[in-house]
């Protein structure tokens, strides 16, 4: 089974600083593998363990993002493909186009696995776009994947329900974090990861942008969050009754 996994070198939200105007300070911000992408890699490795084959990790990014690709290789992926591009200047469709073009060159793949969304921008647009561009079915928000021959049974984690669907192989999917617990690569695996093959492709060469003008981000700012303050007065008994009432109305007490 040939398995493609898409990963992103995302901004490390734990180290992200917010500027005085409320805008995140992205220049020079530390990066890491997008949190949920670890679940995508893990699922690829799990499927490989069950069905044999190969896990190839694809990423669009600059040279600074190689450490994310290396982390996926340390987890156990067999090889990596880095599509070089200025990720700040491209939108989701452009990213998906480059990923799909790279996959067509080293495919075809039986399963294409992405995560539900990147931990920094969280648009969730790339996975279905990749499926569409490859011309294969797409099943999003998978929390369980079982493949038997040419058919896959997938449980989708939706807002208030779980949906079970079947898809024909090949297919593309996005996984949610509950699908598995990503493994930690051991230090030996990290040291050995740099010996695994990584192919570098120029994004503009494999998928020319042409005259298309993508989505431009004009500004980005953090959303102010206001906490609700409720002052309760009266005697202790009255205040306790009012507090119980207020908590019930908020749905805290049922």
């Amino acid at each position, binding site marked *: 089974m040939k398995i493609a996994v898409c990963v992103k070198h995302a901004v*490390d939200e734990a*180290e992200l600083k917010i500027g005085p105007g409320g805008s995140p300070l992205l220049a020079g911000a530390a990066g*890491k593998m997008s949190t949920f992408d670890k679940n995508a890699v893990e699922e690829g490795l799990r499927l490989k363990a069950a069905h044999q084959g190969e896990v190839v990790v694809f990423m669009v990014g600059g040279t600074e993002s190689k450490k994310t690709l290396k*982390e996926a290789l*340390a987890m156990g992926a067999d090889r990596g493909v880095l599509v070089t591009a200025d990720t700040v200047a491209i939108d989701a469709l452009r990213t998906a186009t480059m990923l799909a073009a790279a996959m067509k060159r080293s495919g075809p793949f039986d399963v294409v696995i992405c995560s539900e969304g990147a931990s920094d921008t969280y648009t969730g647009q790339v996975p279905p776009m990749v499926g569409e561009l490859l011309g294969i079915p797409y099943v999003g928000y998978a929390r369980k994947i079982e493949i038997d021959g040419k058919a896959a049974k997938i449980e989708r984690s939706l807002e208030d329900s779980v949906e079970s669907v079947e898809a024909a192989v090949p297919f593309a999917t996005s996984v949610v974090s509950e699908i598995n617990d990503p493994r*930690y690569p051991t*230090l*030996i695996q990290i*040291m050995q990861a740099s010996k695994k093959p990584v192919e570098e492709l120029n994004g503009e060469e494999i998928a020319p942008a042409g005259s298309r003008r993508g989505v431009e981000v004009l500004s980005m700012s953090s959303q102010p969050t206001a906490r609700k303050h409720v002052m309760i007065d009266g005697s202790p008994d009255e205040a306790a009754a009012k507090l119980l009432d207020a908590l019930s109305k908020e749905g805290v007490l049922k």
Partner: protein
Amino acid sequence: MTIFTAEHRQLMQMLHPGRHQEYSDVLTSLGSFMEKELLPLSPKLDSGDEPIDRPRSALFAQGMSLIPFPAQYGGLGLPFSVYAMAVELLGTADASVALSVEIHNAVAEGVLRFGSEPQRERYLGPMITGRRLASFALTEPASGSDAGNMATTAEKRAGEYVVNGSKMFITNAGEANVYLVFAKTSKGPSCFLLEPPSAGLKFGAELKKLGMRGSKTREVIFSDCRIPEENLVGEEGKGADYAKAILHGARIVVAALNVGISQLAYDKALAYARQRHAFGRTISDFQLVREKIADTKTGINAGRLLYLYASRIKELGGDYSSEASQAKVFATEMSLKACDDAIQIHGGYGYTTEDIHRHWRDARLLTIGEGTSEVLRMLISRRELARAQ
């Protein structure tokens, strides 16, 4: 929280410009593992609700102890400064596990440096992969740093040594399956590898300690305990020299461990100072709280630079005994002040909440263990006076 920070990464870049990315990858992964798998367990390790075995084994499985050892024995062969920084991260995640692993690795270094090739083959690989847990049995009920005055004896009889005496405050005792035992033969203090179970080897009850409660500490008692002749490490009579050499390296690591403890206490105090209000503003706005923040941060950075400086001298093959002691004296004493200030910033909660005063209780051991500050100051001054001649 992120244990391996941009500051650590920058220091790796300064120390190892050619290979810093590789070393940072190792430390990033290890830090990430510790944040998720060890840090949340730390209060339970302190309270005794979580035994140390599982997290320590998981850490060994990640490769923590492989870092500084040569590839020919299964290690990663990375610089000592990378290992020391890994112990700093571990000190942040949990000081007890860090203490247990640090002692274990100190024994492994002793076997590497002074053991015979058959001893290395038999013990080193299993130790650095965590299949064998090691313990360092030097201190005695009536002698600590004064290793030359030990009372435990090893008498050579018909192809084996018969050991009598006892060792006190021994970390990992009762759990370990290899002990580096120091005992006096007719030629003076000597060093042996002992594998339990062994007739004549007993352990005292687990000692109740102020801090470092996750790690097990017991007395080790030898009553006609027999050790095969081939388990003598190095030469008879050189045990005190071996112990000193092992402890010089361990002191660098203990300094790193204390920097790690301080970092966590500082992070908690800083976060609390920024959210605790008094007189209409956060207490971080008050000048005297800011003084504590400034002094602690300065101390942590100074301690970190000192242990990395000593590590670098060790890596380059120089004499690092004074610098290792300087790092330990400074970092352990700084750590007590940092943890005390963290309690002070937390006010009444600092005195009552285990989560804050645990760090001071953990830090308190290490101005005593592995060389008291007083003895190390003697060592530093003696070495510096000798250098001046």
